């Protein structure tokens, strides 16, 4: 549905987007993840035709953005980072304007009512946009993107600045939209992307550093298992006891919790469950485990790893 090929955007000497290629299938929900300034918005602005690329092509449903901008633009509903709202208009007047601007060929009043119902702004339809709260404004921006039922929706950080309840609502909305539309949406919050998307593309410094199904992403980049332990006892004794356990790769003291309690992170081989041995070894060294927590790397950690590795490579 959307095909991006070797997309590059240079501003003078800085390269905002560096040779990005990816394809989004029809009906897929793609998460665009990256720290602020990674090039997410630039990429989206190029796909929607707001700015032009320095090189590379963007094809939406067979039409190329530079050769046939009208065809591409009429297939995309775009919600930019800052919703493009004329604040001196009422919600309904604004949506009527956007409806006309997009030359939508559906019954006007009914379609606008339907979209307003979908994003739950019917109750504020006669109010001026400047008097609306941030959450409502975001939803008006959403409504604008949905006008005309475009096959592709591009949403740039649609949940920024919303309260937790609104965030959950917007996520639900995105997921339900994913059934009928192809959705590309960006965020710098990983949990959000993993909760809503089928696939995640991580971009950092204008380059794609990971492109995988949501479930695969975490397991593909996380390494060994980890165990977090709060142990009471002298450090040397504890380390001595832990070191000899088979399967242990690395022990790291992260911080002192109180005078004689410290937190350790133990990395160990995936294949061996060392928890029982750890318990016995620490007990026989006359130390006490106060807390033991096992867990793989969270998505957040693997994300940070990806991004920081990339930056190290740059230096």
């Amino acid at each position, binding site marked *: 549905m959307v095909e991006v090929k070797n997309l590059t955007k240079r501003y003078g000497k800085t390269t905002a987007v560096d040779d990005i290629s990816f394809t989004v299938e029809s009906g897929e929900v793609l998460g665009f993840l990256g720290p602020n300034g990674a090039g997410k918005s630039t990429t989206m602005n190029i796909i929607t035709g707001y700015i032009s690329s320095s090189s590379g092509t963007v094809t939406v449903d067979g039409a190329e953005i530079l050769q046939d901008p009208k065809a591409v633009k009429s297939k995309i509903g*775009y919600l930019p980072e800052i919703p493009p*709202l*004329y604040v001196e208009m009422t919600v309904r*007047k604004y949506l009527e304007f*956007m409806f*006309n*601007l997009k030359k939508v060929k559906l019954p006007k009043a009914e379609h606008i009512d339907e979209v307003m119902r979908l994003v739950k702004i019917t109750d504020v339809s006669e109010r001026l946009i400047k008097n609306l709260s941030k959450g409502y404004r975001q939803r008006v921006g959403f409504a604008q993107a949905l006008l005309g039922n475009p096959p592709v929706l591009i949403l740039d950080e649609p949940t920024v600045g919303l309260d937790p309840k609104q965030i959950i609502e917007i996520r639900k909305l995105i997921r339900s939209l994913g059934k009928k539309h192809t959705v590309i949406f960006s965020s710098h919050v990983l949990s959000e992307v993993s909760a809503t998307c089928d696939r995640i593309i991580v971009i950092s410094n204008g380059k794609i550093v990971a492109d995988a199904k949501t479930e695969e992403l975490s397991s593909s980049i996380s390494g060994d298992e980890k165990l977090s332990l709060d142990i009471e006892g002298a450090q040397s004794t504890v380390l001595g006891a832990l070191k000899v356990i088979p399967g242990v790769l690395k022990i790291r003291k992260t911080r002192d919790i109180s005078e004689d309690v410290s937190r350790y992170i133990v990395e160990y081989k995936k294949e061996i469950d060392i928890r029982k041995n750890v318990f016995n070894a620490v007990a026989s060294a006359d130390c006490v485990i106060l807390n033991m927590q096992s867990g793989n790397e969270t998505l957040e950690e693997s994300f940070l790893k990806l991004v920081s590795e990339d930056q190290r490579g740059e230096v």
Partner: protein
Amino acid sequence: MMAAILKRELSSYFNSAIAYIVMAVFFGFSGYFFVGTCFVGNVSSLSYTFSNIFIVILFLIPIISMKTFSEEKKQKTDQALLTSPASLFDIVMGKFLGAFILYAICCLIFFVYGLVIAFFTTPDWPVIICTTIGLLLVGGALIAIDVFISALTESQVIAAVVGMAVGLLLYMMGTIISMVKVDWISKALEAISPLNYYTNFTYGMLDLSGVVFFLSVIALFIFFTIRVLDRKRWS
């Protein structure tokens, strides 16, 4: 799509104070000139009113046009326009026509003055009609220039100030020409001095070269504005 933009432009003028303030100032000053010359001076000709109103227009038109593109850029609403299927020509033309229609409504007042004169004596209708057409053309050219300036900046104030400066410069073209000693330069400046063309209209002539001149300026600056918007995408 152009119609949608035009409609929005007009509603933004008339739903805010801008349109009413512009009209009040225009009607106020033109009324003052009209009463001052025609009633107090007991003349039936509107030509003084017409020549005096020119300086008011120089200040009002930048105010009408200043927000056309600068405001959109500042509020990021240009993203909605430029990612919609509307062409750049539709967008620029819609904006231009919005400002022009507001200005044209202001200019209609001269027909009212003509009717007032008709109560006392026969007004010189050819002069009134031709001069109003002239005013519309001069104003249209200035609007096109100021819309172009507005597309260059994010600040409405800068757009207005630069627009006024350009307007005044064109207004003073006559004095500038008289100071230039090089023959071909003064000839060239004379050829692009809007006041020269405008004066012919005030004699009651529908001067074809003037019509062509102003329409060309409008077309040229609409084209420039489109180029500016297009270029911005590439930089």
